[in-house]
């Protein structure tokens, strides 16, 4: 099994420092800065690759990925209803059907550190997976009845920071190409891993700060937050394999499936389903699933991808 990437050690450092109640903090402005650069970097890289692809070849995989984004939250909802009220089950299902770009970034670094290639258009899949599950979750919570301001909501979700930067990066990478972006590689390529390290340091601190919520979330949700991603990873890996992705690409799709949103989904559900308790979904996605994926999941998902391709 592949060993962990050193970048993970920064997450561990943040977690330990936070749990020990150190006064270490990264200012929110710096967290935002790191996020912007990482999202753009992922998008740009994807866009460059995308331009090398015949667009038609992406249609089927894209539809398949969207379908996965619609099915996963339904499965999650069925599971969660065994222990939670409707609105909470629906909101959490939306988080788990959607994806975490932070987890994706770590997985990319991990795959690269293993010397594996992967399909650049995976970055497009991040965007495609972000939204459908949120819509499913909202419908599960509120029904299709009137009252949901879909227009306002679409604005909030589709124009959220992560989608705008990923899509914008994809478009710019696609237009400018590798040569056009070369003069910016000092920021978007050379600093990627270092910025990821700082991002993980902060994620460790945030996770530690939410350790309290976690205890209150109960065993049922904790089990879900570990076991459901394992199941999703199998779904994602199988889909990647069926779509003919490389080992690296398969592993990344497994990771996307296994990851849970903690940026786009919380924002959307806070507005569309305010009755749902945001502490529950964040405790699960940010407090358990993110660290689980990053510390334990990644090598498992790579093993799974390798096994499917063996």
């Amino acid at each position: 099994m592949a060993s962990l990437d050193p970048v993970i050690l920064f997450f561990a450092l943040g977690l330990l420092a936070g749990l020990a109640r150190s006064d270490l903090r990264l200012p929110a402005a710096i967290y935002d800065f790191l996020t912007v650069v990482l999202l753009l970097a992922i998008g740009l890289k994807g866009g460059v690759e995308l331009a090398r692809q015949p667009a038609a070849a992406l249609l089927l995989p894209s539809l398949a990925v969207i379908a996965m984004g619609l099915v996963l939250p339904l499965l999650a909802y069925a599971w969660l209803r065994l222990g939670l009220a409707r609105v909470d089950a629906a909101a959490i299902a939306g988080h788990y059907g959607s994806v975490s770009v932070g987890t994706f970034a770590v997985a990319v670094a991990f795959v690269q550190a293993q010397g594996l290639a992967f399909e650049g258009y995976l970055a497009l899949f991040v965007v495609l997976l972000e939204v459908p599950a949120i819509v499913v979750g909202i419908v599960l919570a509120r029904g299709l009845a009137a009252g949901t301001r879909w227009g306002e909501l679409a604005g909030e979700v589709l124009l959220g920071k992560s989608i705008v930067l990923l899509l914008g990066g994809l478009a710019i990478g696609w237009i400018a190409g590798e040569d056009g972006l070369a003069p910016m590689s000092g920021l978007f390529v050379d600093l990627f891993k270092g910025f990821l390290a700082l991002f993980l340091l902060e994620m460790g601190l945030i996770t530690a700060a939410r350790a309290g919520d976690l205890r209150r979330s109960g065993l049922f949700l904790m089990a879900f937050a570990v076991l459901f991603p394992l199941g999703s990873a199998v779904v994602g890996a199988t889909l990647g394999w069926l779509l003919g992705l490389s080992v690296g690409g398969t592993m990344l799709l497994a990771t996307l499936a296994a990851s849970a949103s903690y940026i786009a989904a919380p924002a959307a559900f806070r507005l569309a389903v305010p009755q749902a308790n945001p502490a529950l979904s964040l405790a699960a996605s940010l407090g358990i699933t993110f660290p689980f994926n990053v510390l334990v999941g990644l090598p498992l998902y790579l093993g799974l991808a390798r096994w499917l391709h063996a």
Partner: protein
Amino acid sequence: MATAVRKLVTIVTEARIERQLLAAVEAAGARGWTITDVRGKGSRGVRRAEFDLSGNLRLEVVCETAVAEAIAASVRERFYADYAMILYLQDVEVLRPEKF
């Protein structure tokens, strides 16, 4: 110094609902507002701005009593049940009452 009395409405709530809150407050008749980024603790736990919009905002509006009551009523109806929020009112003396 001739002063007039107006109401100062202060709301502390989740940073995430800034747009919706401002829309409600302006609809209730406020002609101006001031926002500060803050953090805090209340019945819904600790809210620090560790990342993104996980923190609070403080909204302040100086206005006539009727507007203040309209704001309070509108905010109570739309946000009290589901969002972390406190609201309180004070009297303030202003110099240019026509502004508020």
